[in-house]
């Protein structure tokens, strides 16, 4: 669960990135966050990951009050969140398997668990044939699926996808969102930041529109996909 209470962020440069934002995303929700660039979407994500602190207000994420969270506890917070970036951020010197296993190694998981969990998650994103390949040998869509597997492998409560379709073919974008939707159906909260309105219109659901640091619109809309079926 993510909750923002009267949150404002002013950067040291004097830029007001967020103004008095109130927002609640419940466990199991799927929400699109949309808005033009510079609207405050990235600031929102940085707040959730505690890369930055709110200048005012309270941010609650998966039971952590980020205002009171000590630096040494930040890793514990981040272990409850899976992040997918626009630029994938895979480690080029590691195979697909190693990239995914890396997350579990980092949190000191037992070797036996790693050996069973990693192939399972890789199969969830449909890349079982590519487990031994390096990221550079994969297409953009495949790389983003690896990133998704990496975000999933630790069974996080929340997945944040920051423009996950920004660097891949439009046709493959739908696949990625489909994957995120199916992950959400298993109970994981998903927050997807995007500026691709076609995708949002197609899938529908909860849409949060941020404009100039404030929430301009936060409602459920029906997607065109639902009309198709």
């Amino acid at each position, binding site marked *: 669960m993510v909750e923002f209470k009267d949150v404002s962020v002013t950067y040291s440069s004097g830029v007001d990135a967020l103004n008095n934002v109130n927002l609640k995303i419940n466990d199991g929700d799927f929400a699109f966050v949309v808005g033009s660039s510079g609207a405050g979407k990235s600031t929102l994500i940085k707040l959730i*990951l505690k890369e930055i602190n709110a200048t005012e207000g309270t941010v609650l994420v998966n039971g952590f009050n980020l205002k009171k969270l000590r630096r040494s506890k930040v890793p514990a917070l981040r272990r409850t969140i899976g992040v997918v970036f626009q630029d994938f951020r895979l480690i080029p010197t590691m195979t697909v398997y190693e990239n995914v296993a890396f*997350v579990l190694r980092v949190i000191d998981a037992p070797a036996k668990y790693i050996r069973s969990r990693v192939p399972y998650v890789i199969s969830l994103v449909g890349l079982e044939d590519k487990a031994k390949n390096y990221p550079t040998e994969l297409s953009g869509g495949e790389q983003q699926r690896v990133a998704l597997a990496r975000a999933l492998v*630790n069974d996080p409560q929340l997945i944040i996808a920051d423009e996950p379709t920004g660097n891949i073919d439009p046709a493959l974008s739908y696949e990625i969102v489909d994957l995120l939707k199916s992950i959400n159906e298993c109970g994981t909260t998903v927050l997807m930041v995007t500026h691709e309105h076609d995708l949002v219109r197609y899938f529908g659901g909860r849409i949060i529109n941020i404009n100039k640091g404030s929430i301009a619109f936060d409602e459920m809309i029906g997607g065109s996909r639902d009309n198709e079926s």
Partner: protein
Amino acid sequence: MRASSAKYLVGQGMKSIWRNRMMSFASFCIILVSLLMVGVSVLVTINLNRIISGIEDQSEAAVTIKDGIDEKSRNALKDQIEGLPNVASVTFYSKDEAWENMKSDMSDEQQDLFRYADENPLPDTFRVTVKDIKLMSDTSMQIETFDNVDSVKSPTQFADVLVSIKNILSVIMTAVIFALIVVCLIIISNTTRASVFARRKEINIMKYVGATNTFIRIPFFIEGMIVGIIAAAAALLLTQFAYESVYNIFKNDMKLWSVLGVDNLYPFKKMFLKVTVSYLVSGAFIGAVGTSISAGKHLKV
């Protein structure tokens, strides 16, 4: 931490040496050169000190004994001199010995001049060596006050020169070694920073997936330590080779210089253990600490 994780971290550290081989090689070279510069400077200082101490040990005061005293008073004088706190040894050097010695140093023609000398003109002397050359002149003056002492000749001026050479040398060498250490640390931290900078993305990802700072640092620490140890081993071999070459030159080809105490150099074997331990420890320390400090700069995400 689990054993499997520890094994993984050590493995990662070793793998990244090869993965980042250019940077590892740069760190290796820097640590090697640093250790060599500091190590050689220290070795030179140790040996210069030893040479000077050797000269000091050899420099002695000549105590001329009054003519015609009996053996009993001579021995009493010897005991008296030996009783002084700064006196290391007292050797009797009879006028006959001195005469023979002097003649043996002369060429045949010169000896001819003395062939018909009816009496040995040289006096009996004590050769006195001191413990602390700085106190040589005080000791000489004390000996001069004793009965049956005719005069004392001591190389006080030479002693003063030696002492000041030693003082200047130790100041210069300390400054040089200190400066070298500072320069090396700066270069090493910059090199490792570049090596860590090349991997900041990796560190960044680790932070996002919830790795603790310790977990991120350990592979860097191990990597730096291994590179440092390898560099130390190479530095040791080079130092040994260079040292022994120089040592042999002094031992074999410069025997004439032995008056200057150059044959007092330490053989490398005698210092092998100390040099090995200091190289390995400082190599591992510089490598490990340098790398993990630089890694720390990228941990604030």
